[in-house]
């Protein structure tokens, strides 16, 4: 207890040279690694490491929505379930959704509702599952960024990928991508998600204390980071589909009885859904 109070009051989050505790500059992202197509059963999936975060995302659908009375005759439901594994945080979290998870699931569902071509799949649901396996602040942004890759991997038609990164304020300085200590002892946190190609904002939350100027600084950092994440997302998808091709050429698998994920994707998105850069 004494220690915590002590830390809370004395903790310097930025040193004399403007470096953060983990050595980053204010506008620097933590290391990010994305891998697409990591699960067998899901229609699409992605794994992401982002600083100390380890996040897995999976997508099922479009599939018949259950229970039936939830079906929308005009469009698909886009539903996200964000969940933290009990062991993903320092003090064990009891299994099952808490209020925080429910809220995050809701705002992520709404964010993806902006980009999925829902009208093409009436009465269905597109189900997005995000599992936080190891948490180090910024899990909703990591989950959203990974889930976007999983959606593409599942072949769900959408306007574009979504990328997400928070900015915040620590020791009075606006910084990109806070880690856990910075989030706990900082002054503000502002997660957002955008469609990088158009700059449209699909998720925006904030708590803490930011002047209007600081907010604009934070937004410009996050918008820049989103562009970099967008590149990493597309790299992951390129690697994924390249590997699949290699697989097909190299090892002719022994007569599969069940259609694998590749065969079960009849609705592969038209290329321009992901921008002229393609996948």
């Amino acid at each position, binding site marked *: *207890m004494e220690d*915590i*109070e002590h830390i809370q009051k004395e903790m310097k989050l930025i040193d004399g040279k403007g470096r953060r505790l983990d050595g980053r500059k204010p506008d620097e992202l933590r290391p990010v690694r994305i891998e697409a197509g990591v699960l067998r059963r899901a229609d699409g999936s992605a794994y992401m490491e982002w600083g100390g975060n380890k996040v897995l995302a999976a997508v099922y659908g479009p599939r018949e929505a259950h229970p039936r009375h939830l079906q929308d005759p*005009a469009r698909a439901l*886009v539903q996200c379930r964000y969940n933290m594994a009990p062991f993903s945080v320092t003090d064990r979290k009891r299994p099952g959704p808490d*209020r*925080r998870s*429910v*809220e995050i*699931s*809701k*705002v992520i569902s*709404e964010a993806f*509702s*902006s980009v999925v071509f829902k009208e093409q799949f009436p009465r269905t649901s597109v189900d997005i599952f995000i599992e936080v396996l190891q948490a180090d602040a910024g899990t909703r942004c990591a989950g959203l960024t990974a889930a976007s890759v999983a959606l593409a991997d599942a072949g769900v038609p959408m306007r574009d990928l979504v990328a997400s990164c928070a900015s915040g304020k620590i020791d009075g300085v606006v910084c990109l991508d806070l880690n856990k200590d910075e989030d706990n002892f900082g002054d503000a946190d*502002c997660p957002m998600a955008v*469609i990088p190609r158009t*700059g*449209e*904002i*699909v*998720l*925006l*939350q*904030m*708590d*803490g*204390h*930011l*002047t*209007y100027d600081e*907010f*604009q600084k934070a*937004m410009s950092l996050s*918008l820049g980071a989103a562009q970099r994440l967008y590149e990493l997302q597309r790299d992951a998808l390129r690697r994924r589909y390249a590997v699949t091709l290699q697989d097909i050429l190299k090892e002719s698998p022994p007569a599969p009885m069940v259609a694998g994920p590749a065969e079960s994707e009849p609705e592969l998105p038209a290329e321009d859904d992901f921008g002229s850069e393609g996948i």
Partner: protein
Amino acid sequence: MSDEIVSELMRAHVYRLASSGQRVDGRGLDDPRKIVIERSFVKTAEGSARVKLGNTDILVGIKMSVGEPYPDTPNTGVLSTSVELIPMASPTFEAGPPRPDAIELARVVDRGIRESKMVNMEKLCITPKEKVWIMFIDIHVLDYDGNLFDACSYGATAAIASTVVPAKAAGLGDDFPLPIDHWPVSVTTAKIKDLLLVDPGLNEERMADARLTVTTDESGDIRAMQKGLSGTFTYDEVKRIIETAQRVGREIRPLLQAS
């Protein structure tokens, strides 16, 4: 089906009006509805306020009790906010445990109060690590006619301002009012196509593409934000919304501070 058609007609009508700066109930795009606040409505609560924002009608009660602090904040009181969307208030609300809508609402109202440091929670510590005041903000939505985010926030703020901590009954000295440091004001804007409308009424809310709630303090600084719905905002729109929230917040703040 027929609901859908009516709604499309309505949407067209509302949008056409708004394009010329008007709204169905006669307001301008940046005008909130009339706010009526009745403080200390409930005698069994330590603080309370009934707020009408147009025809949206909510009641907030605050109960104070003595309990333990969280281990990671041993010197501060505890704040717990919950919202009940009781089925009395709307044909679309159902009895049962809180749904995502109610949870989001409670958490956004809570952050507006918590992150603005409206109440000096350190003064609610009785004995560090052992005994603190716990403050339950219970929000009862009685009649739902749109924009619960702001109505609930105003109700919570006004109820806090009317709360007297029952220290005497707990053998902890004299009763005292909750120590208030800041006055956050939440302002919610809805987006319909390319138009931005402050304090959406029920019909506006139903047809909105996106929603942004911005809580600012008496310095105009931002204390909490929450985007909702499945539409998007441009960065320019966000900036305009914040500026409007600062201006409207300044107008509303005196209403909340009055007692």
